[in-house]
């Protein structure tokens, strides 16, 4: 979303990684998240949270990310989630 600050995007990416929606960035290779992966992750998070899956870090999504919650990821390793080769 064009109105988002870099800080908000970073916060969103961190949040999505922390709770299993995005694979964590590889610190060794400096791997970045693709825009497509980020959009899909946001959509997955929105569906899981009961929001409309716009794929954008809109106000409702950011608000949900600020909601107190359990530390455990929503999507687990070894689950049914497809992995990119």
């Amino acid at each position, binding site marked *: 979303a064009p109105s988002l600050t870099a800080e908000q995007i970073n916060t969103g990416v961190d949040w999505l990684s922390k709770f299993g929606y995005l694979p964590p960035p590889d610190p060794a290779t400096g791997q970045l998240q693709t825009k497509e992966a980020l959009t899909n992750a946001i959509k997955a998070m929105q569906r*899981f949270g009961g929001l409309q899956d716009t794929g954008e870090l809109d106000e409702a999504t950011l608000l949900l990310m600020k909601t107190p919650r359990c530390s455990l990821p929503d999507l687990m390793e070894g689950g049914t989630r497809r992995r990119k080769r």
Partner: protein
Amino acid sequence: TITTPSKWSKRHLSWRVRTFPKESRLGHDTVRALMYYALKVWSDITPLNFHEVAGTDADIQIDFSKADHNDGYPFDGPGGTVAHAFFPGDHHTAGDTHFDDDEAWIFRSTDAHGMDLFAVAVHEFGHAIGLAHTSATESIMRPYYQGPVGDPLKYDLPYQDKVRAWQLYGVRESVSHTIRPDVTRTADPPVLPELPENRSTVPPARDAPDRCNIHFDAVAQIRGEAFFFKGKYFWRLTREKHLVSLRPAQIHRFWRGLPLNLDSVDAVYERPVDHKIVFFKGDKYWVFKDNNAEEGYPRPVTDFGLPLAGVDAAFVWAHNEKTYFFKDGQYWRYDDHTRQMDLGYPKDTVLWKGVPTFLDDAMRWSDGASYFFKGKEYWRVKDSDVEAEEGYPRSIGRDWLLCTEMQSDSPASDINTTETRFRQGQHHESRSENGYEVCSCTS
């Protein structure tokens, strides 16, 4: 690391609160009670059984921690992440549950910024038994905090959470999985939880014994706490050795299932294998799960390989986890794991040097030592020793039951003591003055 959740292969799981919130208004007993009821939510519907223990090796260790607490899931101050639990497994942290001590933990509070500890605990214990997050709006396993869930004593899991728990562990007997409960919730305000005991408001009967001037029938460590039995009554001490109340509780009002005409017990101990509690009286014994007698009891003590005369004392020696029975100068060693009496017994109790031949009872304690009780005195045998320590016997009343020299707390003697103090012009704080009862508060 977080992996796909598994499930417990065992059905009896121990728990303890290792660290309590440091700046919370919730007392230790309230925290423990809320944990008890949050676990009970799950054990009510599955064949899982949870029991609180005092030792260091509980399956579910509960902590209130701040920031980075060395488990890879640092907390982040108020808000944000508030708690987490580890899924079942073989790793040492499996089942452990951590709450962020920076949160304002509340119970029965209107504080909009507080976190209802019971609601969060039910969610986290769902993880501790193997449930992952779900997006279902009615589920307690949604990852986001959704506010209080009401009275812990009346809380009923959403149906889909029950189904997921049943998929892991099956249905507990007496629970119908075909009846979908009415999802409408009452708007009753939550009530303050009580610990599992029945805290009676009925005044003690006239025959209530004076704890400072009696010989006890039985003494036992149960769930890490000490229980002193006399006649139809018992006193209870917390794990920190604080007397819960000066008033004795009535055995039948707490230990449900003992015959009402039972006027005393001979010995009591907590089985190390499944933490069930065994009561002995004469040639019979009863097995309790928590504070309810199991069906099929009483049974004859000969089940243990003991003579029909019964036992004077029973305790589990921390040194070898074996159960020792004492009767009239003899003792037996029993293995609760194999449910067989060890060969070569009974032996003469003189092998326990310095300990009286005829005992009232014995118990282990959380300091690793064994304690032997006879009359108004007790003896301490530390670790794996078989000889009482120097300096014993000591007074049971003075060291365990808040008695001082010449003190008595029976209703009649309370009056006498108080009157005597007044006559002598003393103004020490009395335990019973002007019609008010004074409790011993531990938290």
